[in-house]
């Protein structure tokens, strides 16, 4: 390979990748797994990539292709995707061979232009490296003869055996085959998925086989017994994790020059559930419209545009068009999907589908299966359950109103915008609640017969022993305890709502968990146990009434699910009152506070992480400060405001009042917002006759479903309780106090006048 050729590809040059490598976020491990197949010493024979819809699997493979292409002298990458447009198995096989040869020669000649504009097969013979010329020519000639013959199987095998032939002649490749779910609708005598599976398992060439996770293995089995794919690794490609999705939004905003705020960034992540495809579509739309994304309204406008006419709309449209080419059937399908989505539980019987779509079983079942594979619905033998993904549901609702109910477009746009805008704060609130949840499910999943101090699961004991004790003194105390509890070995843990959907009416999904396990060996009926755990929403020690309600609820779940033996575990952030503890002991239930849970978590998994960023300063008479919540950091704020107030010559008493008001405001922010970054943002503005202090934190204060249901009980307990005085104090200590409503919650503004 000449030096001239080496210079043709710069390290960052994109060939198939549609996203700049620096904007390709959160997939470095997967990229490494794929590129690690290139060396002939690779331990793996290949990879199966089970992809969630719109999780960016194709882009992952394209980025992997570009990386491999740049490793000159190594294995040649070949990327081939089955398309929705292709009709027959033989057409797909022919295109595979053409793609294979053009990409192989492109890599070996370092001529990336061949990848996107492939020369003809005849031309490829001439362009082949001298070392490859002979076998390429022979392969093309054989192919020319086979394509005019009638032996479809021979043609398919010839095309897909080309990589093995190349390898035997010293041209090692990595074969990446994408969108395998599209094989399903190819017509022909040959079961193509099965052929590909056979080739990938037996050729001495690494294969990456990628498709939608609900259909990949079915397609590759082609109706035969499932293949074992020995020596293959597996990648489960999900949407991006939240931190990665946030980074993606920021990078795209930067690249596309779209103004963004932290609040809207987080909303975008939630709107699209971390899907890189949808996030990118959304950000490109904002760029196209020259829109800024600094308020929830900005975001929802673009969202509605995308649902009703942008790339997101086209994606869903093209899926429905592909599944139901007939316009009439498609309208019926939209009506049916919409109706099912509005049913309780989003379910409708298969029989209703058959009658309403007027399709024969051989047309109906592939349609239902295709919806299932694309995760727009779940096909459960006797009924279809429509996906609860809000993006899909918003699209369905709008499509139904436009195409079936033929409502005016302006009305649909306006209604959708208003509805989604109203939903945005709830979406964020849900996210914050989820982020603030104590992680019962994850903790239960770690139970594996460890022995822990009994006080960790009995709040009354813990409180009696450790109340007011230094945190660092608690650990040795726990170590010294002789009364120990052996945790069960948990074999399956899931949200309570997965077992008993009505729980969603009274509790966030992540706050109630059901864990199946064994509290002793061997695995026998008598040792089988189910733990039912719930995190109660309570700012102070949970009282007896609330505790009783939750004991009853969990017991009811246990009975209605038919659990033979179950244990209750109630968790309240501040623990339980003496009366509640008495009840818990009567019910033989476990109880823990947030502190106990933290200690238990630390004992079961000692790694804990955290970390975020800060803000800047603007006007000369304005000061800004960001402090982390907790660890008495409100004292730092109080000392700072003291120095600032001195500049305006406030008297000592007024300074003291400001300090105390600020302390209360910080405590209030920490206690009452489900803050994702655990930071308190403060602004101090000096004016000629006053000091204005603004305290805000990210996170929305909304009543949770738990509160809504237990309201009466909690109100009674609050009356007797001794918390919630902060605001009252602030109002007394400062001259003016007001709440400012912002997209992402409330902001407290306090003013103290110099002379009043």
């Amino acid at each position, binding site marked *: 390979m000449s030096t001239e050729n080496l210079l043709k590809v710069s390290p960052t040059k994109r060939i198939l990748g549609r996203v700049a490598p620096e904007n390709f976020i959160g997939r470095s491990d997967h990229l490494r797994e794929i590129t690690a197949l290139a060396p002939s010493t690779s331990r793996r024979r290949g990879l199966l990539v089970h992809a969630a819809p719109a999780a960016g699997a194709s882009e992952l493979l394209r980025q992997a292709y570009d990386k491999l292409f740049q490793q000159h002298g190594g294995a040649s990458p070949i990327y081939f995707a089955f398309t929705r447009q292709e009709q027959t198995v033989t057409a797909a096989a022919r295109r595979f061979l053409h793609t294979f040869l053009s990409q192989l020669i492109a890599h070996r000649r370092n001529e990336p232009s061949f990848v996107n504009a492939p020369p003809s097969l005849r031309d490829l013979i001439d362009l082949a490296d001298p070392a490859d010329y002979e076998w390429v020519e022979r392969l093309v000639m054989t192919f020319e003869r086979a394509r005019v013959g009638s032996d479809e199987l021979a043609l398919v095998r010839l095309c897909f055996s080309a990589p093995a032939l190349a390898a035997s002649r010293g041209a090692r490749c990595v074969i990446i085959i994408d969108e395998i779910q599209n094989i399903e609708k190819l017509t022909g005598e040959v079961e193509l998925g099965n052929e590909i599976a056979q080739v990938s398992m037996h050729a001495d060439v690494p294969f990456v086989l990628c498709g939608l996770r609900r259909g990949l293995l079915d397609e590759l089995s082609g109706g035969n017994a499932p293949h074992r794919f020995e020596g293959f690794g597996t990648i489960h490609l999900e949407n991006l994790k939240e931190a990665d999705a946030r980074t993606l939004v920021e990078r795209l905003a930067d690249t596309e020059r779209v103004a963004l705020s932290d609040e809207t960034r987080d909303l975008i992540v939630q709107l699209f559930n971390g899907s890189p495809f949808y996030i990118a579509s959304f950000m490109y739309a904002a760029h196209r419209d020259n829109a800024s994304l600094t308020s929830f309204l900005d975001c929802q406008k673009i969202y509605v545009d995308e649902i009703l006419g942008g790339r997101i709309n086209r994606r869903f449209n093209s899926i429905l068009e592909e599944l139901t080419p007939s316009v009439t059937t498609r309208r019926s399908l939209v009506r049916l999907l919409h109706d099912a989505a509005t049913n309780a539980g989003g379910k409708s019987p298969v029989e209703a589908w058959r009658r309403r779509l007027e399709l024969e079983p051989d047309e109906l079942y592939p349609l239902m299966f295709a919806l299932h594979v694309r995760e727009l619905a779940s096909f459960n033998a006797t009924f279809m359950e429509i996906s609860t993904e809000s993006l899909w549901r918003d699209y369905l609702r709008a499509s139904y109103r436009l195409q079936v109910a033929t409502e005016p477009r302006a009305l649909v746009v306006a209604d959708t915008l208003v509805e989604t805008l109203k939903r945005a704060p709830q979406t964020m609130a849900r996210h914050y609640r989820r982020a603030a949840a104590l992680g019962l499910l994850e903790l239960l999943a770690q139970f594996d017969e460890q022995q822990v101090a009994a006080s960790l699961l009995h709040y009354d004991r813990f409180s009696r022993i450790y109340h007011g004790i*230094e945190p660092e003194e608690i650990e040795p105390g726990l170590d010294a305890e002789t009364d120990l509890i052996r945790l069960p070995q948990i074999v399956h843990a899931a949200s309570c709502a997965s077992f008993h959907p009505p729980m969603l009416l009274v509790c966030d999904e992540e706050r109630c968990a059901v864990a199946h396990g064994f509290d002793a060996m061997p695995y026998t009926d008598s040792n089988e146990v189910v733990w039912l755990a719930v995190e109660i929403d309570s700012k102070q020690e949970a009282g007896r009434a609330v505790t009783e309600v939750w004991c009853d609820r969990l017991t009811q779940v246990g009975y209605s699910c038919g659990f033979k033996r179950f244990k209750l575990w109630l968790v309240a952030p501040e623990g339980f009152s003496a009366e509640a503890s008495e009840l818990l002991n009567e019910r033989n239930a476990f109880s823990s506070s947030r502190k106990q849970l933290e200690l238990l978590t630390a004992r079961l998994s000692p790694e804990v992480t955290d970390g975020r960023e800060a803000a800047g300063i603007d006007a000369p008479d304005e000061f800004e400060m960001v402090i982390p919540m907790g660890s008495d950091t409100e004292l730092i704020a*109080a000392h700072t405001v003291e120095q600032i107030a001195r500049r305006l010559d406030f008297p000592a008493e007024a300074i003291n009042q400001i300090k105390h008001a600020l302390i209360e405001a910080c405590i209030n922010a920490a206690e009452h917002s489900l803050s994702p970054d655990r930071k308190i943002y403060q602004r101090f503005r000096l004016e000629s006759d006053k000091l204005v202090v603004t305290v805000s934190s990210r996170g929305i204060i909304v009543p949770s479903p738990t509160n809504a249901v237990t309201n009466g009980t909690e109100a009674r307990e609050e009356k007797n309780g001794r918390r919630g005085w902060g605001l009252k104090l602030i109002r007394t200590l400062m001259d003016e106090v007001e709440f400012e409503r912002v997209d992402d919650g409330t902001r407290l503004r306090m003013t103290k006048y110099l002379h009043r």
Partner: protein
Amino acid sequence: MVDSHDRSPVRSERSGDIGVIYASDYLNKLSGERIERECRAHLSAGCRALVVDFKNTGLVNSIGVSIMLGVIDAAERARAPLVFSNVNDQAAQLFELLGLMRHAALAKDESAALAMLTEVNLQPSLSVLVGELT
């Protein structure tokens, strides 16, 4: 990082039948709980009255104050008079606002508090003490 327990920890001592608890420089949840713990310990050990001294306390917050109500409850249940001493003006204002002063007496300093408790001869009824002192 400011960390209250590194600065002025809660201490306590006993003066005859009276337990004297010295609050730290910031009355918050943790230091409040420590005071509460100390108070309960003194009551369990047979003290018949309590003094909580706030000489070192510059700042208080509402959670810390709310825990003081727990101290008041404990003292009432034990029929032990309770006096807060050395409370600065700001803290006194907050105690007043949050209703603590209805249940506890204030003294200028520790010796005044001890004198008060000696004068009333450790009357068992807190209300009697509060009544006598106000």
